[in-house]
């Protein structure tokens, strides 16, 4: 059984309230980290749309993210364009590269899709180093100022919070639309969709561009947050980080990648003060997640929830085995919360043992 709608709405309201109240409660340093986590949360959500919902594991999303950021940076530093133009160029560049990448990747799936997106990410990374007149090579582009209205750290935080909330809401709607349904069908088998009349290559390209649009928005928010962009943003490690956030939080859930982003960004910024080899620690957490909690943190929580209910004597502590599990099966095909912490025999169990 999953978290009930009431609980979900309660959590959402708490999250928004906490988000709004945060600048009054904590230091600029923490707000900076939270802002970064929100930006990466959106980035990881864009990866989750492809990898978690569609089973299309991308490792080149940082390419799109970086192209959008460079679009903003180049317009700001070389063309002296206003902020409207900067954002417009960033959006156009991100969408254009998404369309090109989508056309390259639309006829592949599985490990081939992964290899194509890997190559795409590497191409952008290579160009970021080589196209010095545009990207400033290793030095990157500096002095990309925020619009005056959001130049303060806390006003920019509110802007990012609002955009990420809005984008998250839009993605949630997309995943529940017929497009999202077909996307999840894609993960179970492309042939099955095709014989129902879906042009799956086109459908993949469409979702790829949609996902690229959200990576683009994340890239634009990222460059204004740091006021600086360098080839590091386009590295494979950035894509890998995004994927890791999605897996750690729980793929196929949207809220999982956001939670994963907070865990990893905070670990990166706080833990690194105390532990020298914090990346080793991160690696260990990742391995443990893959081995023992394939639904990620969100999957663990929805599994634990019936136990919490049972402890407080709530009667509705069991239900359909499948319905509550996050569809975290993208990377392994089998992972799902197995429903039944109490040994209560559900109808599903009876049927499968018949």
């Amino acid at each position, binding site marked *: 059984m999953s978290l009930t709608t009431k609980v979900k709405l309660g959590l959402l309201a708490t999250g928004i309230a906490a988000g709004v109240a945060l600048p009054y409660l904590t230091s600029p340093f923490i707000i900076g980290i939270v802002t970064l986590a929100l930006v990466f949360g959106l980035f990881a959500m864009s990866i989750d749309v492809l990898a978690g919902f569609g089973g299309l594991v991308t490792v080149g999303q940082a390419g799109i993210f970086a192209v959008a950021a460079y679009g903003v940076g180049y317009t700001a530093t070389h063309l002296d364009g206003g902020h409207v133009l900067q954002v417009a160029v960033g959006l156009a560049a991100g969408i254009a590269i998404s369309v090109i990448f989508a056309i390259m990747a639309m006829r592949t799936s599985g490990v081939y899709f992964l290899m194509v997106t890997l190559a795409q990410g590497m191409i952008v990374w290579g160009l970021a180093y080589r196209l010095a007149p545009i990207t400033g090579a290793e030095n990157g582009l500096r002095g990309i100022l925020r619009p005056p209205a959001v130049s303060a750290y806390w006003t920019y935080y509110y802007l990012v919070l609002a955009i990420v909330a809005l984008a998250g809401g839009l993605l949630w709607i997309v995943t529940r639309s017929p497009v999202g*349904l077909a996307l*999840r069908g894609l993960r179970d088998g492309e042939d099955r969709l095709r*014989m129902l*009349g879906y042009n799956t290559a086109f459908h993949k390209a469409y979702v790829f561009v949609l996902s690229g649009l959200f990576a683009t928005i994340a890239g634009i928010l990222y460059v204004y947050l740091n006021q600086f962009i360098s080839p590091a943003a386009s590295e494979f490690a950035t894509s890998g980080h995004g994927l890791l956030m999605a897996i750690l939080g729980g793929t196929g859930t949207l809220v999982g990648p956001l939670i994963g982003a907070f865990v990893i960004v905070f670990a990166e910024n706080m833990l690194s003060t105390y532990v020298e080899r914090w990346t080793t620690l991160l690696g260990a957490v990742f391995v443990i997640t893959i081995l023992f909690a394939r639904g990620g943190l969100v999957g663990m929580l929805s599994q634990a929830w019936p136990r919490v209910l049972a402890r407080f004597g709530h009667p509705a502590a069991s239900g*359909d085995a*499948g319905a509550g599990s996050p569809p975290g099966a993208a990377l392994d095909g089998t992972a799902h919360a197995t429903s039944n912490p109490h040994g209560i025999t559900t109808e*599903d169990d009876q049927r499968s043992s018949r």
Partner: protein
Amino acid sequence: MLSIENLRCAYGTAEILRGIDMDVHVGEVVALLGRNGMGKTSLVRSVAGTRPPVVSGGTIRWAGTDTTHAPSHERARLGMGLVPQGRHVFSSLTVHENLTVAARRRQNGWDLDEVYAFFPRLQERSRSRGRNLSGGEQQMLAIGRALMTNPQLLLMDEPSEGLAPAVIAQIRERIQQLKGSDIAVLLVEQNLGLALSVADRVYILGDEGRVAWHGQASELEADDDAQQRLLAV
């Protein structure tokens, strides 16, 4: 009408079908029989456009259109619905989602309510995921999903495979109900009893990759020799 002329198809260099001629008319159920490995599934996959095998010769015409080399999603849009061997339902989608993802509306055609009325069991299980269904329920779902596309040609590849007799009886009843509506059914079967009880006409594939026998179902029922020669194991 589905009309297959001199169809040849191959897996790599191995030619499985070597000149098949076959017709299926709207309103009739045609059974395709034959021993294992004779190419029944290859024929259905060629008609549906699922690869492999690759069609190496001949033509497949459906409703006046040459669909021999059309991509499978275009064939589906032209009104072909496939109930694949092994069911292949979407395992992570619920029953309800499996059906709605397939929906293609047509005036007076199949919709969710009609499919649920056709298979009441699916309505009871509407919130369960495909992977949590029994074999019989998955088969009902595979048929229901194909009906949601409102096909005029229903290709059914061994719907009785691995099912309990009681469930097979139910599937038989449903195929009989489909008969006579404006739909053509091509049914691949190993289960001779099921095939004979629902089919109007029968084609039997022989070991040369050609049609070894065809005629009315009632003729085959009376023809022990053909049954022995072409179907007995």
